[in-house]
């Protein structure tokens, strides 16, 4: 069990989200950085889709009431376990009474903390993910706050050894500003000039960037479509409202929307974009769906490599 003695402004339970309820208007939700979630679960011996803590907006302290194994990563942060530095993507064995303190995040937006056994909250519509706009899922459908107690599930049978580190070359290149995209549902309806404006220049993540969507600043992508009959979106879809400012749909975006979609971010690169903070730049590079799906399979194979290395260390 974990007690929250000091909470950041944003702390929720997330997993890979709800995949079977979009027809009811339920967004997938789930982790903003799905690779970090899966890699950290692997590092503590969990199934890749176990529930973890998603942490943003400030520092905090967790008191570990029982012996436990955890790993953290995603955003970079100054973290200490009862005074000792905690390196990212590393298997940490903690003892009952230890305190995990995280100071402000130094790079990236979302930090993940995976605990061996996973976070134990009720499964709702097939997932433990928190969907704050609907006030369900995760920890009673709300942010975790000071004084809350967090339960973990049964420890997995195989846990990597103390100090196991995920090889850095298997992680997404979080420092890169290049984000690959495939053509969106309405790609043909944008002019060549709009496409040049989209792929030929950098965009800046604006202050209006949260779990619902990241609004970008930069070139405007003019079009004369106005709004269209609503169609289905997904995390990473880049929609362009009439004034031409692109918005990347994120985990909590509504299932349907009426703005034309010029492109969709490759899932392999979605973690890089999700971890971009307001003021940071991104540049979009168009690839084919075959290339994009190959990149995603490469990430899956990297996760398998991490799991094998972890098992070998145990």
């Amino acid at each position, binding site marked *: 069990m974990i007690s929250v003695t000091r909470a950041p402004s944003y702390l929720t339970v997330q997993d890979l989200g709800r995949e079977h309820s979009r027809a009811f208007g339920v967004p997938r939700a789930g982790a903003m950085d799905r690779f970090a979630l899966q890699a950290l679960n692997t590092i503590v011996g969990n199934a890749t889709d176990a529930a973890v803590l998603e942490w943003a907006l400030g520092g905090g302290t967790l008191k570990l009431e029982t012996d436990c194994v955890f790993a953290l990563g995603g955003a970079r942060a100054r973290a200490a376990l009862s005074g000792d530095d905690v390196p990212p993507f590393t298997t940490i064995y903690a003892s009952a009474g230890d305190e995990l303190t995280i100071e402000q995040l130094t790079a990236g937006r979302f930090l993940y903390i995976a605990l061996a056994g996973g976070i134990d909250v009720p499964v709702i519509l097939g997932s433990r993910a928190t969907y704050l706009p609907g006030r369900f899922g995760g920890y009673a459908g709300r942010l975790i706050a000071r004084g809350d107690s967090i339960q973990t599930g049964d420890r997995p049978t195989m846990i990597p050894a103390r100090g196991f580190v995920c090889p850095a070359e298997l992680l997404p290149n979080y420092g890169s500003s290049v984000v690959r995209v495939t053509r969106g*549902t309405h790609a043909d309806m944008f002019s060549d000039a709009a496409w040049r404006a989209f792929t030929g220049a950098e965009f800046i993540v604006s202050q209006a960037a949260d779990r619902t969507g990241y609004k970008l600043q930069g070139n405007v992508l003019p079009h004369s479509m106005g709004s269209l009959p609503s169609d289905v979106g*997904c995390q990473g879809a880049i929609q362009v409202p009439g004034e031409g400012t692109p918005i990347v749909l994120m985990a909590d975006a509504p*299932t349907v929307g009426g703005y034309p979609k010029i492109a969709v971010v490759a899932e392999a690169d979605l973690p890089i974009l999700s971890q971009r903070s307001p003021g940071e730049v991104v540049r979009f590079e168009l690839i084919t769906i075959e290339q994009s799906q190959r990149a995603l399979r490469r990430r899956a194979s990297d996760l398998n490599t991490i799991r094998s290395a972890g098992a070998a260390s145990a």
Partner: protein
Amino acid sequence: MEAPRTEPLGDSAVTIMFGTERSPELLKRVHSAAASLLAASIADVKDVVPAYLSVAVFYDSLQKSYGEIAPTLLAIARRTALPAARMQASRAHDIPVVYDGPDLDLVASALGLTTEEVVARHLAGHYSVDLIGFVPGFAYLSGLDPALHLPRRTQPRPRVPAGSVAIAGAQTGVYPLDTPGGWHIIGRTDAVMFDPVRDPPALLRAGDTARFALTR
């Protein structure tokens, strides 16, 4: 009638497009194709989501590539997206309403009707669920009496209470959750439009029909 075609929607979804212009006939094709795609229980398909002109199918792209799954989906869509195809699992709902919404008087005067006439015309409608979206369980209902068509509020409300029955443009609907909203609130219902721990969680599904009835 256009032949359906597919486009990738990112790495893990396919959009099957049935046409470019909204119409009741096209929507019927969309809903019947969605029902058939769901009933087909295709391996590695996770979610089937109808919209106005298209159906999106979410799938496990680690198991199947776009090139592998798209022809299977397209074949089912071609076979079943016929205007005469039966509407599977279409259900009729009666939604009890108390017409005491904060916008009722304003709506009546904007439309040049009495509040009684607004209520009577709203009650007389036979509605179809065109689309679910915006928030979980929010149903866009078509079939609103043209005499009740009114642009949405210029100032959206920051919070519309769950259960509010509202109209905007050619549509009516019920807010399932407390959310911001720009529709005109004419009444309220105690029907639970969305409950995440109920199966199914949403009261209404795309393709269903609904009527409103006075709460007794």
